[in-house]
């Protein structure tokens, strides 16, 4: 007997709030407004995920509520020094609205706000914006994101163009109880190369319901780095969809530092032979933070590769959940897929859950996964302390040693340093 679930409370995201949002974006193309209306209907109709749903196993359900949040409607108060990353070209959004840009887009690159891109490059946006289904359990919240998405960043790199500098996007939220819906869409055409960095920060507790789409055409190379450092009382959802075409290479790295409770869903599709996806994440969880990470690597064509490495450091009473799945379709012979979740436990009260999964339907493959949870090696600590390094510093060194396997994959020095600094700051708190 099936029991129908009640719909999730819409909180302040009522029809009236949605109508007000539509009024603010009514100048955008009709197709996009139609999709938003459909998304709102999905949000309103979709049942609340249940604690017993496999996609929500181990999640802290009690803290999930939309009550008390309302859509933010803009602010001019950009924090100029927010992430400390100096980019030649950047866009800054505060409370869902574009407030600043620096530098010009390099030749062959469109680097625009999503609203401008919808008006000027509608077909390009339509082909890639939120076109991948939500598959990891948060379809209700993904629908909310699409319904209330007001603005974001659009990066399009033309065929054969290689962008040397990092394109930076700053998403900031100001004000207590406000909801923001950041989005970054990256489209790299055939043999293009680009690095895009998203920075998320805020000063007060709110609700962040963000997304990003990464599309790498034939032979393209996309590097995407997201640094999530929302304020400590923020509820955060972030949905990623990556598509890699023939011989494309996508590297995405997500740093999870902020938020009270953060759920990150990452869905990577290897659609054509030679496609490769590198999925990386670093998490520093402390206090009472909860990081819930759900991933899916789907190999849909032969000779594709994927490599997932999620490393978590846990302090205090923090909690992490990693639930990942590698799916190899029947025709995806010669797949080479790996998935690893490593948890470094630094507290007797921290809690780590690992659910690394495989679903393999082709036989000529190499698919492996691993998960470990353990403390810092006491002998290593002793070795450092015996050389005059204080215990706290020794621990920090060992944590950076643990993270370096991931950090070392970021070739851009400034990005690497910024990531390192955010992690370092977290240890000072």
């Amino acid at each position, binding site marked *: 007997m099936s029991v129908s679930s009640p719909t999730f409370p819409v909180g302040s995201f009522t029809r009236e709030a949605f109508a007000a949002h539509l009024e603010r974006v009514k100048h955008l193309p009709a197709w996009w407004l139609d999709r938003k209306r459909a998304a709102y209907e999905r949000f309103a109709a979709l049942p609340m995920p249940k604690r017993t749903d496999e996609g929500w196993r181990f999640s802290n359900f009690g803290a999930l509520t939309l009550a008390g949040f309302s859509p933010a409607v803009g602010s001019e108060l950009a924090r100029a020094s927010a992430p400390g990353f100096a980019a030649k070209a950047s866009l800054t959004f505060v409370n869902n609205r574009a407030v600043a840009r620096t530098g010009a887009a390099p030749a062959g690159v469109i680097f625009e706000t999503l609203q401008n891109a919808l008006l000027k490059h509608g077909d390009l946006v339509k082909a890639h914006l939120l076109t991948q289904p939500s598959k990891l359990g948060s379809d209700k919240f993904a629908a909310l994101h699409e319904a209330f998405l007001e603005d974001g960043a659009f990066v399009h790199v033309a065929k054969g163009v290689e962008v040397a500098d990092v394109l930076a996007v700053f998403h900031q939220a100001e004000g207590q109880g406000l909801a923001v819906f950041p989005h970054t869409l990256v489209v790299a055409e055939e043999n293009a190369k680009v690095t895009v960095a998203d920075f998320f920060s805020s000063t007060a507790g709110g609700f962040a319901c963000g997304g990003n789409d990464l599309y790498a055409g034939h032979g393209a190379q996309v590097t995407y780095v997201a640094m999530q450092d929302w304020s400590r009382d923020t509820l955060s959802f972030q949905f990623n969809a990556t598509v890699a075409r023939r011989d494309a290479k996508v590297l995405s790295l997500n740093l999870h530092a902020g938020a009270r409770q953060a759920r990150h869903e990452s869905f990577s599709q290897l659609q054509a032979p030679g496609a490769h996806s590198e999925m990386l994440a670093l998490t520093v969880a402390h206090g009472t933070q909860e990081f819930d990470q759900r991933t899916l690597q789907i190999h849909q064509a032969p000779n594709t590769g994927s490599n997932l490495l999620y490393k978590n450091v846990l302090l205090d009473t923090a909690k992490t959940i990693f639930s990942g799945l590698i799916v190899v379709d029947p025709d995806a012979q010669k797949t080479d897929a790996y998935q690893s979740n490593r948890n470094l436990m630094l507290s007797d009260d921290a809690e780590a859950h690992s659910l690394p999964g*495989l679903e393999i339907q082709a*036989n000529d493959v190499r698919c*492996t996964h691993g998960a470990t*949870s353990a403390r810092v090696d006491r002998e290593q600590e002793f070795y450092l302390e015996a050389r005059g390094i204080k215990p706290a510093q020794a621990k920090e060194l060992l944590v950076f040693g643990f993270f370096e396997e991931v950090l070392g994959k970021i070739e851009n020095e400034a990005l690497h340093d910024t990531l390192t600094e955010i992690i370092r700051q977290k240890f000072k708190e």
Partner: protein
Amino acid sequence: MKPPTEIEATAAEVENPVAGIDQTKGDFKYDVNYEFDAGTGLTEDTIRYISRVKKEEPWLLEFRLNALKTFLSKPMPTHWATKDLENINFDKIRYYLASGQKPKRTWDEVPDDIKETFERLGIPEQERKFLAGVEAQFDSEAAYSNIKDIVAKQGVIFMNSTEGLREHPEIFRKFFGKVIPTGDNKFSALNSAVFSGGSFIYVPPGVKVAQPLQAYFRINAENFGQFERTLIIADEGAEVVYMEGCTAPKFSTSTLHSAVVELVALKGAKIQYITVQNWANNVFNLVTKRAVAHEEAEVKWIDCNIGSRLTMKYPGVVLKGRKARGEVISIALANDGQHQDTGAKMIHAADDTTSVVVSKSISVGQGRATYRGQVHIPKHLKGCKNNTECDALLINTNSRTDTYPAITVRGDKNATQHEASVSKVSEDMIFYMQQRGLTEAQAMSLAVNGFINDLARQFPMEYSVELKRLIDLEMEGSVG
């Protein structure tokens, strides 16, 4: 003796001295005039009938009726498990079938038709050769039960559960339903409602049973559900090895087997539980198996799943006492039309407990092998360790394998490690062997046997040898 009505196996197979693992061996059945038949379908009346026939005390009837309510209230677990479960028609199953026999203590007393069944399967030979005791269950009730004098004199109790309840209620009730509560899952509730047969073993403190005890489970009737309940208690410092084998003939309709097995290893005790399951390919085999290991106790599950249409079985150990140790060694082979959904649970509940899971699966043709695991180390424990390895081998292009482990660790004084791999047999290896005159199928069999060799060596030798033969059989015609 009545002649068999359906014999697909040949007489040559009787030569095999070890029961339970040759896939063709069990494929015959006899017409039996059952004296007791609860009919088809499951209602309160079915349960009252079973309880009345078994002359049970009122508390047990109450227990069964409550379990029925739990069973009916629980949804089928298809939100995570296979939808194939929905094909079980509980209204068409017969929940109790028996010939009114009490278990016989000598082989000669066993009715001819049942005796013939077990003789074909080699049970008497095994008993003579290397067992300390054997129990043979035919449909719902034990047909034959014996324990060697030397073991009985040491105070070891080995009988079926019905007798155990009647003759040793003070031991039975103390542990019954404590390791696996009725409401643990839908099928443990079903078993609690209609259970019949199974083994009851009690090994007194310090007694080490030198030879294995064995139970043999046979489903003979069509549309039948077998729901044995096994309870094994090894008292302080005791040691026992228990082996079970299972077969059923092939019918055109599917059959249900849903057992509950509870093991209790008290301080310093050791229990080794070996299952070689070779049900026919239309049996739904949905079994709950769990042990509690007290201080410095060891429980080892060795589990080999070859037959059945769907097996869902995740033997577990609750490591309740300090320095307790749990181990699951598992081999599963899924051929066409089969789904081996197996795994292990390790629940650490005391300091310095260790657990090991090693699982190997082979998917042949369109077979599907799934590993599901749970490792749980709760708060404020220290010195706990778990190591899990699961490897899957895929033979054909359309074979399938899944792995779904769940590992929870709290605190910084424990360590867990999980590794899994999926691969196919190396083409170089096959080529090398073919160069030396082996056929492709022979080469593949050799490679598959190599894959499981380190685990198969942990089986008693008779089983290990037979397992290899069985793999040869399964690999025939699977290549190419």
